[in-house]
């Protein structure tokens, strides 16, 4: 679906991404995980074209991403936190996005499930964080995108709505569409993700299937596997902590070659 | 009606001058030239000039008590070569003629109508066009110049004389004339005890009214409009200037009314509207400036430090860029009980007089006085801030120049 090849990005003196490569398969949910500040958001923004990579290429459906951003037609994006102009009504926001993407097939499932019709006339400023997040989700799924980029999608959602959303993610996958998702809730990712990409300090430390990760780390759950990876990352810095042996990169930890996943 | 009046006039004249006759020039008259009629006229006669254009050598009236009258606006043409009409006898009346085209001369002051060394002449209801000088009273006493219409459009200043010019001609009455386009509209020099009323003097190349060395004159209800340099009044005493309008004199040296070395006098009830400088007072003293209206002038009143003992009361200042300015911290004129639109004090005892004093001289006005280029900052927020600061703590503006009893309502 999308392929990132040796992406490099610096902000000032900070190397945010160093030669990161990632491929998101069609019909798969790819979990992007990593500690805070590992470069996940920057990576997502590079995919969206909000941020430009210093080095590296982005291919969407085999085509290089165009500067004008027409490729974003296939993408639905749900940012971490929804901030809409507070004096717009929910209907205004939904109409604006719909009109910005004219002629695209629409999918009203989520709008129905989240009962958008009931809050269309409400001002965004009066909505609770969870309700805003629902609007946020509706916008992301509205155009039947073949790639969904979801940044902490269930944050702030009540359990019922979170379930509706997760169900929607599964149905998207069943339809052969792709999802790139970040979350801090590993158990949630466990039930959703097919592939996992682990970023740390701007480097892609693992990219592959969840099964492969479990097999390599010997852990039983994604949560434990990722926690193990994070512990290993921090170990060299904590010289007084001898508990875990120095993390030595093994072949599967090197960046996944193009098309390998 | 007109015929009746004329008849009455004839009867009156006839009664005074037994045997007075009408000498008619032109169509149907006994004379074909005015010169011939004037030669034949006897004191008290009436010369009637019928419509037509007359090109004759300068006409000189030498017969006392003669009435020289046009019928149907006869045109007396100077052919750009000579003066048109000269009154050289006492008690002569000239009316109803059109005197044109004296032409320009550097050697002589050619006038449309000149009165020379006479008494009691009356010049009324004439039209003067394209003359170097319009009506010129020269050493003529107690003359009347009224209801004349005098224009000299499109002539350069160096090629133009004054509209109504009085030189050593005391006791004159100048009334209801319209003058435009001359160098000075109305000019008095060494002509005291004159009365100038209800005239309109506009678009003069220099001053609408200009007088010097003419004491005890009275100027009332005149309108001076769009004169290049406004009105200038100099070196005279006991002048009364009341109920006139001074409008739209614009330019770097233009004044609604310029007073220079005037000793004692009254400036009252006048309106100064949209002049670069409304009233300019230099070297004058004991003037009472009262009940005037100053609106939308650049500088409403500029009172130089060498003017002393002048009092400003019951005047109304509104919409001026600067109300009062001066050239020094020492000020010798006083302001008391005027209305200022920029005054925003209060009146707790409701006696119609503001409880706090008003300082009409703004810091910025003083700055501009010293550095004219700073005018470009007029109405800048910075200037407002500086002015406000100066009002609280005067450093540069004359402290003495203050109105301690500013009015709350404009005087009627």
């Amino acid at each position, binding site marked *: 679906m999308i392929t990132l090849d040796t992406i490099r990005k610096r*902000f000032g003196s900070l190397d945010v991404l160093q030669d990161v490569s990632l491929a998101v398969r069609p019909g798969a949910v790819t979990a992007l995980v990593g500690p805070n500040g590992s470069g996940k958001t920057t990576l997502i*923004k590079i995919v969206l*074209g*909000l*941020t*430009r990579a210093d080095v590296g290429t982005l291919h969407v459906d085999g085509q290089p991403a165009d500067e004008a*951003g*027409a490729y974003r037609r296939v*993408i639905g*994006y749900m*940012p971490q936190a*929804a*901030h*809409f*102009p*507070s*004096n*717009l009504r929910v209907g*205004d*926001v939904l109409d*604006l996005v719909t009109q*910005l*993407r*004219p002629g695209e097939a629409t999918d009203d499932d989520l709008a129905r499930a989240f009962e958008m019709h009931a809050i269309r006339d409400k*001002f965004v400023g009066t909505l609770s964080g969870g309700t805003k997040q629902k609007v946020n989700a509706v*916008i992301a799924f509205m155009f039947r995108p073949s790639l969904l*980029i979801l940044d902490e999608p269930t944050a702030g959602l009540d359990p019922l709505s979170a379930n509706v959303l997760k169900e929607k993610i599964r149905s998207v996958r069943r339809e052969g569409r792709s999802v790139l998702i970040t979350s801090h809730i590993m158990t949630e990712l466990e039930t959703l993700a097919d592939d996992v990409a682990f970023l740390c300090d701007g480097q892609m430390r693992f990219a592959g299937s969840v099964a492969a990760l479990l097999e390599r780390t010997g852990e039983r759950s994604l949560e434990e596997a990722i926690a193990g990876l994070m512990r290993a990352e921090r170990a060299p810095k904590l010289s007084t902590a001898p508990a875990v042996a120095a993390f030595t990169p093994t072949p599967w930890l090197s960046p996944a070659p193009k098309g390998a996943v | 009606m007109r015929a009746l009046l004329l008849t009455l006039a004839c009867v009156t004249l006839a009664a005074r001058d037994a045997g007075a006759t009408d000498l008619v020039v032109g169509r149907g008259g006994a004379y074909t030239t005015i010169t011939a009629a004037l030669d034949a006229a006897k004191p008290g006669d009436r010369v009637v000039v019928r419509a037509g254009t007359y090109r004759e050598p300068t006409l000189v009236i030498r017969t006392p008590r003669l009435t020289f009258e046009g019928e149907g606006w006869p045109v007396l043409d100077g052919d750009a070569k000579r003066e048109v009409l000269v009154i050289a006898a006492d008690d002569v009346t000239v009316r109803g003629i059109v005197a044109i085209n004296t032409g320009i001369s550097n050697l002589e002051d050619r006038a449309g109508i000149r009165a020379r060394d006479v008494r009691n002449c009356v010049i009324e209801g004439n039209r003067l066009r394209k003359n170097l000088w319009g009506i010129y009273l020269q050493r003529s006493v107690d003359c009347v110049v009224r209801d004349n219409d005098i224009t000299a459009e499109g002539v350069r200043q160096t090629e133009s004389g004054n509209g109504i010019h009085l030189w050593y001609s005391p006791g004159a009455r100048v009334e209801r004339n319209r003058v435009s386009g001359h160098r000075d509209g109305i000019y008095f020099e060494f002509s005291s005890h004159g009365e100038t009323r209800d005239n309109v003097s506009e678009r003069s190349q220099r001053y609408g009214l200009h007088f010097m060395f003419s004491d005890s004159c009275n100027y009332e209800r005149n309108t001076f409009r769009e004169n290049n340099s406004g009105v200038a009044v100099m070196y005279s005493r006991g002048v009364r200037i009341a109920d006139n309008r001074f409008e739209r004199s*614009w*330019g*770097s*040296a*233009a004044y609604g009314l310029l007073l220079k070395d005037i000793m004692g006098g009254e400036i009252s009830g006048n309106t100064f509207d*949209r002049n*670069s400088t409304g009233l300019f007072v230099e070297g004058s003293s004991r003037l009472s400036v009262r009940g005037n209206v100053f609106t*939308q*002038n*650049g*500088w409403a009143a500029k009172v130089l430090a060498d003017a002393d003992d002048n009092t400003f009361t019951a005047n109304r200042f*509104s*919409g001026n*860029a*600067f109300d009062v300015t001066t050239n020094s911290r020492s000020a010798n004129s006083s302001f008391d009980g005027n209305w200022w*639109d920029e005054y925003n004090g209060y009146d707790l005892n409701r006696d119609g007089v503001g409880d706090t004093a008003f300082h009409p001289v703004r810091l910025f006005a003083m700055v*501009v006085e*010293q*550095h*004219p*280029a*700073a*005018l*470009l*900052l*007029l*109405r*800048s*927020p*910075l*200037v*407002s*801030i500086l002015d406000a600061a100066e009002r609280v703590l005067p450093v540069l503006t004359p402290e003495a120049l203050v109105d301690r009893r500013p009015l709350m309502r404009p005087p009627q």
Partner: protein
Amino acid sequence: MNVISLVLQAGLRDLSRNRWIVAYALCFFAIAEGLFWFGGTGPQVLLSLLNLVLLVLPLVALVFGTIHVYSSREFVELLLAQPVPRRELFVGIYLGLALPLAGAFIVGAGVPFAIHAGAGASAGGVVALLGAGVGLSLAFAAIATWIALHTDDRLKGVGLALGVWLATTVVYDGLVLGAAAAFGNYPLERPLLALMLTNPVDVARVLVLTQLDVSALMGYTGALFQHTFGTSLGIGVAAAALLSWWVLPLGLAGRRFLRRDF
């Protein structure tokens, strides 16, 4: 419908309900109405409003504009994630800020004059004041947008906006005044006229002055001033200067928007 008008409409809808914008319009309205109420004539009200236009309007446009651009950051990112060109988005976002600012001013300052049928103020004066206010709104909204796009640190950005406000409204004229006093013996008029053109607040002031204080401008320095700015050519030059104060920051802001990472 095209992207610019869609985003602009959203901005108009949002800010027309923004309480600061509404308060801003009401403030102009209340002051103008208050001045009329207390017996102010049209020309007097015009002059009082000129002070607001030269002082308060730039402050509001700069500070409100900067904060607004910062606070719409996430929404802009959401819009940027849609398949629309950045250039059009930028124009829509900018106009969605600048037009409500200008509109609030026009309504607040213009309606009282309409109610009182000018009250003796010349039509040229009212038009010049409203025009100058709109010009300054557009220019300072562009500067604010540029600041917010250029500086990610919000506190720094708002500080910068305040700095620009102080510099353009007070400091610049202070320097000009200082120069006029220091070099008073030289013919300063022409250099100073040129200096007036390089500050948007001065250009706006100059444009209104040619309509309001004609008498003062007809004398002394004013003659040259009037010569320069009073003619239609001069007004054109001044308008062009104000326009460049709009276009230049807008161009810089636009370039920044096109190139920057969000």
